[in-house]
Each structure stands twice: as C-alpha cells, then as structure tokens.
C-alpha cells in the first residue's frame, strides 16, 4: 500500500501494467490451462483418506448371506412389473410389510412444460413406495435412505430385489441406531423429487403429490442403487448432483474402502483407476476422468437419483452396477455385503458427514483435487479480466487523476457515456429475459405455425431468440444515441469486463466446473474484443466463443471422452436435446444452469458483442 500512496511509484506500476498487459494476460491464460491440466497428474494430487472417525477406525464384519434370494425376489418383481404394466405397488407394499417394515405410499403427478422426447413422457403419474425399518431404542430422529428406481422395461429389477433382500436382512439385526428408509421410486428423478419434497414438506417445483404419512427424522445419508444384471463386473460411483453439488468426500472414500475390502472393481466416471501415472496413458486416463467429472458437474443436472438429495443437505451417491465383458464377475451377495458394510458404517455416524471435503475433483477414485488446488486455475483466468479492466480504466481516466484502487467498482464515473452504457446493458438483459421466458410461453404458437413438435418448438425458439439477440443491441443503440464515441465503448467494455469477472467469480465458487468452462471460452473474447478489429473475423471469433457454442464443444468433448465419438451432425442433434433437457431440468428440479446462462452470461456476452459493433 505504501507503493500506491507514492504517486511516482504508482505511476510507474500502472505504466508497467499497461505496457505489459497483453503478455501478462497471455501468460495467465496459458498458466491457467496448464494448471488445470496439471491437476490430473498424480504427483500433484492428494490421496483420499477417511476423515470421519466414526467410519474409519473399525471395520465392520459383513454377513449378508442371501444374494440368491434377492435375485429371486428381483425375478418375482420383474414378473409383477410385467403383469401390472408399471410399478407393482400392491406387491411391493405386501412384500415390504412381510419383511417387517412400516410401509407407506405416495402418489404424485406432474405435467411437464413440454414433452420430454428422450424419455418419452409428458403427463407423469406415479407412486412411490417406501418402507421404514425402525431402529430399536432410537427416537426416530435420524435415518438413512436406500433407494432403487423402478424403471420401465427390464432394467433395475435386480436393484429392487437387492433392496428387498437387504431390508429383510437388516430387519433381523439389532445394531441399528438410525431408522432406515427403503424407497422404490417410480419415474426416476421425478418420483424422487416428489418424495423429497413430500418428506420435507416443501414445494419448489410445482409438483402435485400426496403428503407423506411416515417419516423418520432428519436423513443423514442416502444411497441410490442401480443394478440391471444378476452379476456385475464393476461398480460405478456417481457423485455429481443438482447444480454441481457434490456429496462429502467421505462418502466416496467409504465406497472405495469397501470396494477394496471386498475385492470389487470400482470405477468413477466409468474409468478404472490405473497405477501407471508416469506413463502417457496413465495420465490420459486420469485427465479424461477429471474432464468427465468437470463436464458432468458443469451441466448442473443430477446424474443419478442421489442428485436431488444434496439440496436438502443430505449426503448421497448413486452406485451403479455395470456388467461388461470383463472376465471377473461379482455376485449379488458380495454387492449386498458392500451395501451392508456401507450402511453399518453410516449407522455409526455420530454427526452428519462434514469432516471431509465438499468441493473437490476426482481424477481417480483414490485421488482428489481439493478446492485449494483447483481455484488458482480459475483465479488466473479471472485475473485476466481484472488486468484488462485496469488497463481500460487507465486509458479512460488518464486525463483525470483518479485513484486506481477502484478496480472493484462496477459503476462507471459520471460522464456523458453513462446513458450510452446503460442502454446496451438494459437491452441485452431484456434479450436474456426473453430467452429465459419465451421458449416455453410461445411453444403453442410455434407449434401452430410451424410443422414441428412441441419439444422442437421450444428448442428452436430458444435458438432463434439467441440468434436474434445478436442483431439487437448495437442496432437499437445506434437508433437511440447515434454513433458511439471512442470513450463510450471503453466504458462499455470496462463495465462488461467487471460484470463478467463478478459473474464468473460467483459461479466458480458454487460450481467450479461451470465457472471454469465459461471462463475458458469467454475470457479470451472479453479480453480481445475492440471495435477496431476486422468486423467479419471478430464476429466469427466472438460467435465461436459464445456460451451457446461452448455448450456444443462440451457435448462433443463429453461424447469423445465417453468413448462414443459423434460426428458434427449427430452432435448438433444432441445439442438440441441437451438444450431441451436443460430447460426441463430447470423446471422439474430447479437446476440453475439455464437461468444463469440465459439471464446473465448471455447478456454479458451480448455486451461484448456490442463493443465489437460499436462503430
């Protein structure tokens, strides 16, 4: 600070920063990308360790014997499911009651804003069945949840069978200190959402459901089980939840510990851990795993039924059984033991899971990158925005001596340019509001006038508004205040830079992956754009770096990482369905990615677009 109170040295510092601004920014950007990619390199990451004492010191002994019987129950369930043509509610109620549980049902219905084409549903009506195993001598204050979705077709029967088998086995044990809720939810996430909203007596998404009759206090942890074959080769752990929330890392550690103990192959993001970190392949797999996690987290959607629990501060994960062509198989008894072990450890919890990390990335199941290690990558990107803003500030304010500490002040100084800045800001935000609201509101009209389905209508309207927005701001601006001045665009760009910095900073704190991906694409555009660039080239670059295209790249990358590469036309089909899914996730579960992009990121990018077409 002494440096800044000396006008001479201050002048020297600012001149240094303005002179070297571009090289520093380039170095920052490269360093950020390098840092990010370096996080997948094993020597730079930490090994996971169990932080929670209640789960660490003593290994429980697993004795679940009846995997075969669970599979028989699964076959019975499948037969009943086929007979009823949906969820066999009565059979489930009777079976659960026979296992000594307190059984309750909840029916729910939900009309989607527009038909979901990937899952072929529009008017959803279903029933959740859950049984509560009351712990002896516990006052119903805490509980654990084991859930299995009742999926249409022939999938997931084994999960329900194993759930019922575990219920029977757990019932005969005396050591439970927490109630255990066994939940079979229909229509996967919609049913889960209805159940959770019913359990917590909230209604945030406008679902209609019958109130729950039985409860078991505050839920401490939940596991969701997906299993579609009698034997499995590996278990996949899914952590990413709604809005990029993650469960406490101890839950992943617990899963990993029991997989190691029982000799079950376990994966995360479907990638098996490799031991050869020093080879290129080893690093590539780790990088791919981490990139997949980043992409999934950035999408903000729940990647399993567990994802909705996280909103309620319930640590949850989905365990997915995978049957591939590997030789080594694991039977249902071992799987039951694994779940039994995990539940017994969770049962031992004296406090909520809070000891370990909530913000992390996992390059493999036994390695993690904590928030302290990944934040610098984002920080370097955000620094570029601030440096450019400082540069602009100096350029604007060079005649008038104003303190340069006001970097954080978003408000431009009072000058004739205020109105010329406010107008584009207001217009681009109105475009954002239109992008957010119109697609669903105008779907009927679109269907009437164009030969498209409702889903297509919504997506195409969104894309149309997005594209129309490109033509709007600078034209209207020109109509209102005529030709823009040199000072004017600087002011506008300064405002846009600071706005973007704050926006990305907040996003990255909540959902690092989303913030980082947006920063990687938007920061170069924001840093370079001036009205003096060649228009066509600049426009092309800007469009390629816009949030919409970022989604497109992400889909392409995701498919590539999942080893199901797609061609460009396939990718654009996927792009359309991803947009419709994003809108659906927002209305059904309250995912915030769509409103964030539509209401804030897109308008911010429009401001930069406006700068490009200032003259």
């Amino acid at each position, binding site marked *: 600070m002494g440096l800044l109170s000396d006008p001479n040295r201050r002048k020297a510092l600012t001149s240094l920063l303005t002179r070297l601004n571009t090289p520093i920014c380039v170095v920052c950007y490269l360093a950020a990308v390098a840092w990010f990619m370096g996080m997948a390199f094993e020597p730079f990451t930490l090994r996971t360790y169990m932080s929670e004492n209640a789960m660490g010191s003593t290994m429980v002994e697993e004795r679940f014997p009846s995997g075969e019987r669970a599979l028989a129950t699964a076959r019975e369930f499948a037969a009943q499911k086929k007979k009823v043509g949906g969820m066999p509610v009565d059979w489930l109620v009777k079976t659960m009651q026979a296992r000594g549980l307190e059984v309750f049902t909840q029916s729910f219905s939900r009309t989607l804003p527009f038909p979901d084409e990937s899952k072929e549903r529009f008017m959803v009506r279903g029933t959740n069945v859950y049984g509560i195993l009351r712990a002896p001598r516990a006052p119903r204050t805490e509980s654990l949840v084991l859930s299995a979705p009742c999926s249409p077709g022939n999938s997931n029967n084994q999960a329900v069978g194993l759930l019922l088998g575990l219920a029977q086995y757990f019932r005969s044990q005396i050591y439970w200190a927490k109630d255990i809720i066994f939940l079979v939810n229909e229509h996967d996430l919609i049913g889960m959402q209805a159940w959770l909203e019913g359990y917590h007596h909230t209604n945030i998404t406008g679902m209609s459901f019958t109130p729950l009759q039985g409860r078991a206090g505050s839920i401490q942890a939940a596991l969701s089980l997906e299993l579609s074959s009698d034997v499995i080769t590996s278990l996949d752990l899914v952590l990413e939840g709604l809005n990029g929330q993650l469960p406490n890392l101890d839950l992943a550690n617990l899963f990993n510990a029991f997989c190691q103990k029982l000799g079950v192959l376990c994966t995360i993001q479907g990638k098996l851990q490799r031991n050869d970190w020093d080879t290129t392949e080893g690093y590539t797999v780790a990088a791919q795993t981490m990139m997949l996690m980043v992409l999934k987290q950035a999408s903000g959607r729940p990647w399993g039924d567990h994802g909705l629990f996280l909103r309620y501060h319930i640590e949850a994960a989905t365990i997915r059984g995978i049957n591939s062509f590997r030789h080594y198989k694991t039977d249902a008894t071992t799987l039951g033991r694994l779940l039994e072990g995990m539940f017994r450890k969770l049962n031992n919890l004296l406090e909520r899971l*809070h000891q370990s990390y909530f913000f992390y990335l996992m390059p493999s199941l036994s390695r993690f990158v904590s928030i302290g290690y990944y934040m610098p990558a984002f920080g370097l990107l955000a620094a570029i925005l601030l440096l450019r803003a400082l540069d602009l500030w100096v350029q604007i304010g060079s005649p008038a001596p104003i303190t340069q500490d006001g970097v954080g002040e978003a408000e431009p100084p009072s000058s004739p340019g205020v109105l010329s800045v406010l107008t584009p800001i207001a217009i681009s935000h109105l475009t954002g509001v239109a992008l957010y609201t119109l697609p669903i509101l105008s779907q009927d009209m679109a269907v009437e006038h164009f030969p498209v389905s409702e889903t297509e209508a919504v997506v195409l309207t969104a894309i149309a508004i997005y594209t129309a927005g490109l033509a709007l701001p600078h034209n209207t601006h020109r109509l209102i205040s005529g030709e823009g001045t040199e000072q004017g665009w600087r002011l506008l760009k300064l405002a846009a830079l600071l706005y973007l910095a704050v926006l990305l900073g907040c996003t990255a704190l909540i959902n690092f992956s989303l913030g980082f991906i947006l920063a990687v694409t938007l920061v170069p555009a924001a840093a370079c754009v001036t009205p003096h660039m060649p228009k066509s080239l600049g426009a092309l670059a800007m469009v390629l770096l816009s949030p919409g295209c970022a989604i497109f790249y992400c889909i392409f990358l995701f498919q590539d990482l999942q080893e199901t590469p797609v061609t460009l036309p396939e990718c654009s089909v996927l792009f359309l369905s991803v947009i419709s899914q994003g809108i659906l996730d927002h209305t059904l579960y309250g995912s915030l990615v769509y409103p964030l992009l539509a209401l804030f990121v897109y308008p911010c990018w429009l401001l930069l677009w406006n700068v490009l077409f200032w003259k």
Partner: protein
Amino acid sequence: MAALKLRWGAVFILIFVSLFLTCKCDNVENSNESVRDKDVDPSASQAASPGETRHGEESSTEEVQAEKQQWHTTEFGINDALEADKADSKTLNDSPGDSKSFTPPPAKDHFQEELVIRPLHSGDIYASFQFGIQLDTDFEQEEKKVSHYRLFPKSLGQVLSKFSVQELHISFTQGYWRTMQWGQPFIPAPPGAELWVWFHNTVLNVDENWKELTNVLSGIFCASLNFIDSTNTVQPTASFKPLGLGNATDHRFLRYATLPREIVCTENLTPWKKLLPCGSKAGLAVLMKSEKLFHSSFHSQAVHIRPVCKDWQCSGTAWELRQTLGVVFDLYTSGQGKKDWSLFKMFSRTLTEACPLASSSKVYVDVTDNPESELFDLSPATPVLNTAVVLGDRRTYAVYDLTKAVTFGQLRSLNLLMRWKGESGDMLRPLLHAERYVAGFGLQTGEIHTLIYNNHPYRAFPVLLLESVPWYLRLYIHTLTITSKSRENKPSYIHYQPSKDRLRPHLLEMLVQLPPHSVTEVTVQFERALLKWTEYPPDPNHGFYVGSSVISALVPSVVAMDINSTLERPLFSSFFHTKEESSYFVRVYTEPLLVNLPTPDFSMPYNVICLTCTVVAVAYGSFYNLLTRTFQVEEPSPPLAKRLANIIRRIRGVPPL
C-alpha cells in the same frame, strides 16, 4: 468421613445380629432413629442396650431385623446382601410361629409388585413392571419429622421432605413408543428424560428448590438431570395437573423439563433397582437383567411419587411411590421370525418366588384376543381371569399370583410360555396419535409441523397440546396455523410464553378440538439462531434436539363404540355409559426433533482468526490511510550549500534565497 459412617453402620449390624441371636424370644424394640439415621452420634447408639432401646413402637424384632438388613444390602456388596436375603426369608418363614404370641401391628407401609405382559399385534411383547409402595405418612407435617423408613426408600423420602415436593414424576426412556403398531402404553413417556414436579404451595423460592432438586435427582439416578436449567424448564398451565391428592392449580409451583438427548442405559437402571425393597434379588425384579432389558425395541423406566388417600374413607394422606418399567421385546429379531415367547426367552430368568416383603405379587397376561384359546396356548394355564377396562378397552387378563405356591408348580419355578397357533387379527387403530417433523431445508428458517390424528369415526374431542421449543429456534408465532380438514381450527385456549435468549424456552399450550376422523395440523415457522461459539456442544454437526410435544386428552372409550359387548352384559347395566368407560385419559408424546443449526467450521477457528486479523490490520489500515491522506507534490529539499547560505543570510537579516 463417609467411610467412618459406613464402618459404624457395620458395627450396628454386628450388634443387632448378636442381639437377635441372644434375645430372640425377648420382645425388643429398637429405636428406629438410631438404626436408620446414620447422622446420629455413633457413640450414643453404640451404647444403646436392649433395655434402653425399648420403645412403644409397634414392630417386632424380626421385622426390624429384616428391614435393616434389607436396607443395608444396597450399601454392603452382594455377598452381604445374599446372606441378608437368606436371613430374611428364614425370618419370614419362621415368623408365623412367633407372631402368634403378639398381635401384628398395622403396617405403616406396604408394597405391591406386578408384571403385565401384553402380546402386541405387531408381534412384539410389551412387558410392564409396576412396583408400588404406599407409606402412610405425610412429609409435609412439620412437627412429625419422618425419619423412619421401612420400605419407602430413604433417599427419596429425604428429598421429598427437604424440597417440599408435592408430586414428582421422572421417567427415562430409550426409544420411541410406536403408537400405531403397539397401541397405548400403560405409562407414556417421551424419549430421553422427563421430569415434572409439583412443589408444595408453601415453597417460597420454587426455582431454587427446582435447581437443587434436579441436581440431587441427577445423583440419585446417575442421569444428566443437572442439565436441566431455566433454558429448558417450563411451567405448563394446563397440561400437567397433579395426579394425586391436592387441588393445586397454581402452576407457579409446577416445573416441567425434558432432556430428549438423554441416553438411558444400565447405569440408570441400577440405581432405579436399588430403590426396590427387594432390590433385584427376589420377586419380579429378578427378571430385570440389564443385558436383556436393553436388548429390546423400547425401554422406559419411571418413578412416580404422589400423595394418595390412606384408606378408602380418605381419612389421611399417604405417599405412593410407583416405580414402573416398560419394555418392548422384538422377538422377531431374536426368535428367527417366530412370535412365541416365554419369560426365559425374554428375560433369561424364570420366577421362583415373590418378594417376601410384598403384600401382593402378580403376573398378568393379556389374553383378550384369545377367549377360546384358538390363537395361542398359554402355559401353565391359570383359571384366574381378570377383566378390566384399560385405556378405554375391555381387556381380559390371566392372573398368576406369586404369593401362592401353586403358581410355581412342581418345578418350583414359573416360566410363562406362549405358543402362537394362528395369526392375530388387525389391531384397532389407536384413536389418538400424533407425529411431528421439521419441514423445509437450508439453515436459515424452517417449520415445525405437528399432526394430531383423531381416528374416532364420529366423536370429536378436545386435546391439550404442549410444545416447549428451545430459544435457539426462534418461533414466528404469527405464522401459527391450525388446520383440520383443510379448514382453520381456532383453539379455544391458547397460552404462549415467548422465549428469552439464553434464559427460557418458548412455551405454547393450546386446547384444540379435533373433529372426528381427521388430521389436525399445527404449523409454526421458526428461524435458526446463530449461537455463540462456546454454546455449541462438542458435536455441533449432530444437530440440536427439540423435546417431544405433549398431547393430553380425554379420549372417548372404545368400549362405548363396541356393540358386541352389550350383548353379553345385562341390559340394565349398559344403557348409559359409566364414567370410566365413556372416556379415558391419554397422554401422547410426539417424536423429538433433531434440528441442524448453522454451525461454523470449528476445525479452523485459528485460521479464521489469523486471516481476519491480517485483513483488518493490513488492508483496512492501509486503505484508511490511503483514503484520508491528502497527497501533495513534495518540493525537493534544497542542497546543502543553499541551506548554509540561507542560514548565513538569516543571521545577516537578509531574506533567504
């Protein structure tokens, strides 16, 4: 000092044992005070000879002997106790011959024990022990200081008189009574510890008495009752009326507190058993083996003390001490899915004798569902059946009288055994039950929902709802809504006492009319307070407990609904409902709540302090400096030669350069 007293106590025992052996036929009376009161000067009582201790009191040597030994069992280890027990039983067996020589005095206190076993519809077994001691003395009378205790435990008696307690109810419960599966318990209790006390209306400083009393009881029962303070004590205006004699209505003398977090275990059971006249050595109490009692679904032990009528004319008051213990055994888990039970299976003990000090000792088994023994077999069979209206339902009980030798049969041990033959029918839904939960998510606000179910098909009845919520959940009382059948239900009486931070909890009492066959929902929103960092418990992430809410009601009886029973009874007896059959009192406790409060990350207070201090010291200081200072371009200081020249010029009186 205490050891010294104990040693003196041992000396007394020796003296009296020798006394008993030497002067067996002599009708010797002992000074009760010198025997019982350990505070008496030992030298004086040591000098007491048979002649001197002769008093006009009405108890024989044998009785005093038995009683003394009984009361010292708790003080001197098990070996002594066993010997004492032998001596005891011998004495009592011998006594009939001796007692013919004189008229037995009217007992000032008597003891009853009973065990009720009720097979529940869920397949669980509910065993309820009740031990009652009645002492025909009034502790309140100042001139008649009670210092003689025979069956009534002295530790409690002293507490009662010292703190002028009129009525005391204390319960320790582990687990939650599942009303929907199990029906109503005989003695309801909330999970954790509950204590409510009516003080005598002569007490001047009730709060001080209450505080001391909780600390003393904490010692007696080895429980954390000392955690009861003003922040969890309330004075209910209507929900807890005295159960005994006395017409106390001024709730200033009532204190009620619950500790929902209290965990009940053997350490609480042992002092409780010590209060029994026979300890756990004889009678029904032999069944109380803690490893079995705590291998159950529900465990609740309680002590109730209240004044009752001395006789049927109510010529005076007597103290009744009722010790109860209720256990629910889950035989499904321990019995490989079979519902059959026996005393041995439940308690790993059988009964061999009644407590010799008990005037009545009985085992009741609920056989209501089994009139023609088509559902189960009970062995040994008993011809004695007892029908009573219990909790609004007419029940039939098989009675086993332990004071009769016939009961024990040839094996001299009673092992009740029940074998199920068929499936029992559905249970009648309990007419009143309640549940409670916290709605909402996040750590800022929430909503407490209390659901009260009236399952009666056509009768509405009022209930008293009591909620005591700790201060750190700040209730928004304006959001209180009571709805039944989706219509607003206005309570006819409402008493609300707002909380004071760190001083007292919220108290909300309401009299709500429950429409027939309805669910009444009481909701109130709250805000979670941010506590001071020292106020968090060691495990802050576990959450904070909110005690059960209490619902007290007079519930219309099921008997009145039952048409079949009128067929069996004479017509003249059944037109109007008699009082005890028309409605019955029920107290229902909801589950306690576990609420998470915003919790700081305690693992890094040091980091936070360091960071905050650094930020304040460096950033704030410099910024303040930078913002308040005015900057001026400084004139470069003149060179040395110029300064020297100026000095010379000043001396010369010429203006400087």
